[in-house]
């Protein structure tokens, strides 16, 4: 990216006056880079993902303590640097909170990202199809959305989660199958206005097939919206996972997730208060950063929408 015009100030600073427009993505990246809050939030997310992925490495090399290793003599050990694996304290059976948080992060972030991508796949597919094809398909999709939106989500999740064993995989499936409506609504709305535009008519005129119009012409145009929705969606799902854990219908111990660690810790409030702090803070931070990234991305991708 080069400046098209430059002025030399008195102090001989070179200040770009105007940049060439260089396409949606690099323009967005240019704007995003200057948004310090969003960049910081993005950095936190990337860091959390990397650290969680590297959980076994930390377990072996840094903490030298297995995630399911118990030590009843040190139950509720407060946070300490000696030994290093109790840096965030020990839980009710002397397991290392730090190592469990690392593994819990894998599960929580994994569920969040996996369920969000599934939701997006369903939501974008249906939204594009309903918005572009209209007719019967549209009516059906709208009806299903109306029905699903009329059931308070937690009630529906409650029944379904109580019927199926709540492991990570069923949980991802349940959350995705029940939670795609909002994304579909957004994508459908965009598609409805895009399908009337000239470039779609042009594409159809030169004989583009429906799948080609959908995936080559419409999809790229709703992509910015999808990315913004994705960031926010992952955060929402992580909160949902925590809420379901609280209701005892989330991922079951011994598999650690931030949600069930937090829930579990609330039972030992008075003996091990430190156990409540870390998972709660991590959920809060992750969701907060995801929302901030979503906000920042929206501003960067579509400056016309910038309102904050």
């Amino acid at each position: 990216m080069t400046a098209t015009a430059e002025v030399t100030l008195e102090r001989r600073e070179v200040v770009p006056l105007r940049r060439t427009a260089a396409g949606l993505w690099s323009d967005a990246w240019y704007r995003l880079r200057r948004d310090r809050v969003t960049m910081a939030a993005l950095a936190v997310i990337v860091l959390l993902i990397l650290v969680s992925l590297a959980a076994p490495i930390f377990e072996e090399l840094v903490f030298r303590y297995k995630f399911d290793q118990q030590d009843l003599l040190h139950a509720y050990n407060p946070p300490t640097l000696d030994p290093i694996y109790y840096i965030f304290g020990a839980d009710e059976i002397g397991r290392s909170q730090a190592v469990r948080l690392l593994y819990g992060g894998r599960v929580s972030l994994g569920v969040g990202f996996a369920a969000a991508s599934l939701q997006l796949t369903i939501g974008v597919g249906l939204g594009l199809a309903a918005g572009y094809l209209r007719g019967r398909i549209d009516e059906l999709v709208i009806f299903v959305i109306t029905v699903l939106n009329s059931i308070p989500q937690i009630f529906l999740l409650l029944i379904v989660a109580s019927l199926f064993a709540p492991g990570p995989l069923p949980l991802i499936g349940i959350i995705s199958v029940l939670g795609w409506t909002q994304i579909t609504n957004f994508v459908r709305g965009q598609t409805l206005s895009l399908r009337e535009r000239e470039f779609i008519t042009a594409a159809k005129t030169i004989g583009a097939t429906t799948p080609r119009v959908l995936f080559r012409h419409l999809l790229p145009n709703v992509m910015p919206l999808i990315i913004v929705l994705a960031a926010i969606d992952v955060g929402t799902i992580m909160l949902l996972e925590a809420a379901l854990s609280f209701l005892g219908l989330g991922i079951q111990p011994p598999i650690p997730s931030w949600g069930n660690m937090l829930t579990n810790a609330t039972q030992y409030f008075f003996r091990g208060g430190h156990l409540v702090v870390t998972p709660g803070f991590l959920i809060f931070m992750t969701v907060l950063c995801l929302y901030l990234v979503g906000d920042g991305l929206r501003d960067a991708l579509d400056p016309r929408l910038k309102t904050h």
Partner: protein
Amino acid sequence: MRSLKYILRRLLYAIPTLLAISILTFALSRLAPGDPVRLFTFGATDLTQQDIEALRHTYGLDQPAPVQYGDWLWSAVFFDVGRPPSLASQSILYHRPAAGLLFERLGNTLQLALAALLLQLLIGVPLGVIAAFKRGSLTDKFVRIFAVSGHALPTFWLGLMLIYLVSVNLRLLPSQGLLTIGHDQWDIPDRLRHILMPAFVLALAGIANYSRYLRTETLEVISQDFIRTAHAKGLRERTVIVSHAFRNALIPVVTALGGILAVLVSGALIVEQVFTWPGVGQFTYAAVRSKDYPIVMAGVMFASTLLVLSYIIRDIAYSVVDPRIKAS
């Protein structure tokens, strides 16, 4: 007259939605393990196979699923008038109609939801308007941080933290229930003390939502010409805010209501659980845990009906606030 027609039409449109929800709920409950008769007669050891078959016949459990669904629906709508009740509408644990049990708790849930809604409007709306008028100030920054972080807190965690801080450490407010045991039912101050914390926890996400929404909308409104005119006329700042800007920013308050009501009904379940608030959500959740599926089904229907009705109320309010929107 026209608006009455609109309301009637909206109510009619709600029927297929509620029917679809009832079919979904019924189908899901069929997936639940366990024979209803066995569950219903649990503990009775002197039942023979014939007795069980007879019971199955009495309650229509030997009928095909669509007939059973019809029975259940009939029971749900007409309260078992003049026929043996559908077993699917009877609580296994209480041996009473599930709908009646839930009705007793509906008032408590409504109380909590309305209190939360009130807090959202009373706190969230002014916060947003003030932030917009003092754009870029410290107040504005605070409101924006609050608006994002209010969403990111796990509800139950916030509730438990507040109980720990306010109830256990500071001993300021009670941590659970509707009112102090033994107190008069109409002891209003006592009830207010009990509802304050759960209502706040339930309201937080909405407060954040509203302050954000209102800020955006007010910013848009105050950049328009008629606000400049109002200023130019020499009106006081307060008059401009209250009677010019605020009125126009009110429309999104109603628009946002749909999402917020959904969060209220959904979130109430968790908040009721944290604060042991005897409402529909807490009762339904207890039923899920004890596998009392008739109550679960009725609970889902209750909550959904509540939500559908509040959507209708929102739409009506919408057409009242913004006359430009035709009742179509």
